[in-house]
């Protein structure tokens, strides 16, 4: 059964080549594009709609649109921003289905943590911490949450995010900065994260500021 999937999934051609091949009727090339971006679009749809079946429909609809737009597509380097942009629009235009209780992002964490190693108490602590952080992300406004999700979940850099949300890089920086400040305010309530409250709270004397004793370490690769 993996006779056709493996060559498509492991295709080393660039998006540009795959788009042109798919335009000429090469279904393997289109399948390669599908396998390349399927999971990312699914995660993005899941983060916005919080409904796994809706996220799967978004994947299908996104690639159906891509297939219809093959003749017009001219990807310079990557098709990812275009696909993500379509997926974001589809996700926000999708109305929640009746009778479906939408789960929060943190519900998806539970499934992932089921396979995590360690003592049950430690796993529970981690799950609680993650739930707390994702709850704070859920509390952000849609624009700011989208930027955070695209950056931290889908791994897009600021330039790619700007392409997806169709606004200047400066706006993306501003939104991410605002989101991180809001998140800092929320996350400071959890003592295990080691985040200080924001400065207005410092002025009230709730917590003494820490002096910088050592330079902040340079950013290492992840």
């Amino acid at each position, binding site marked *: 059964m993996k006779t056709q999937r493996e060559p498509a999934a492991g295709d080393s051609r660039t998006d540009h080549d795959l788009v042109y091949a798919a335009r000429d009727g090469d279904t393997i090339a289109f399948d390669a594009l599908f396998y390349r971006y399927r999971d990312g679009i699914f995660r993005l749809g899941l*983060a916005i709609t919080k409904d796994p079946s809706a996220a*799967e429909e978004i994947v*299908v609809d996104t690639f159906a649109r891509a297939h219809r737009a093959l003749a017009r597509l001219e990807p310079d380097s990557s098709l990812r921003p275009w696909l993500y942009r379509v997926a974001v629009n589809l996700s926000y235009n999708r109305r929640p289905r009746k009778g479906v209780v939408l789960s929060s992002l943190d519900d998806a964490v539970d499934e992932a943590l089921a396979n995590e190693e360690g003592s049950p108490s430690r796993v529970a602590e981690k799950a609680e911490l993650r739930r707390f*952080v994702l709850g704070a992300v859920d509390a952000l406004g849609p624009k700011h949450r989208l930027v955070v999700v695209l950056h931290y979940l889908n791994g897009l850099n600021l330039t790619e995010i700007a392409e997806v949300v169709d606004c200047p890089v400066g706006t993306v920086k501003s939104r*991410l900065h605002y989101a991180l400040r809001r998140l800092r305010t929320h996350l400071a309530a959890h003592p295990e*994260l080691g985040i200080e409250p924001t400065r207005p709270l410092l002025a009230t004397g709730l917590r003494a500021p820490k002096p910088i004793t050592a330079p902040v370490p340079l950013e290492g690769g992840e």
Partner: protein
Amino acid sequence: MKLFAHGCEHRQAAYLAGADRLGARERIVLEAHASTCPDCADALRNGRPVDIALRGAFAPLRERRTMIAPGRVRLAIGPSSGTPNRWLPWPRLFSRLTEVSVMLAVTMFAVGSSLEPSTRPAEPLSPTYSVVQEYFLHARAPLDEIDFLRWPKLVKADDSPTVSDSTRLPSGGRFDSDPVDVVRATGTSPR
């Protein structure tokens, strides 16, 4: 001049330092600035744990995968072949022509029937009126009581086959019946 700037202008860069992967040179400049600016020092110091917390929280979600096959996309796209069948539009064309012709016929019928009353000669009276006229204006009612009650049944209003008498008049506490039946039953005594 920044009218609405709150705090240092480098604070945004300090928050984004973890997220945006500053280069070594930019980082050194930012840290040098942070040593003299408490806002930026605070942002730089706390931006990093926020970044770590977010990366840790999203890490399990990044492993989420789906098992959708490309066949579902093909189903969504629908059947597509390289050379379209040139006979394919014909049934649709015929059905469209049928719809248009039926619509025209109905329209013409409606317009024709709406014009008809002006061209048709006016009818003198309705059949109902003529029957009433025959019963109560031209016929003389019998004076006997029983016959008076039977009279509407016995007197036939109009024998002409063109006039249809749809009016049924009450007689003796029940509706009258066909006059032919009444005539046939004249030998019997009334109850």
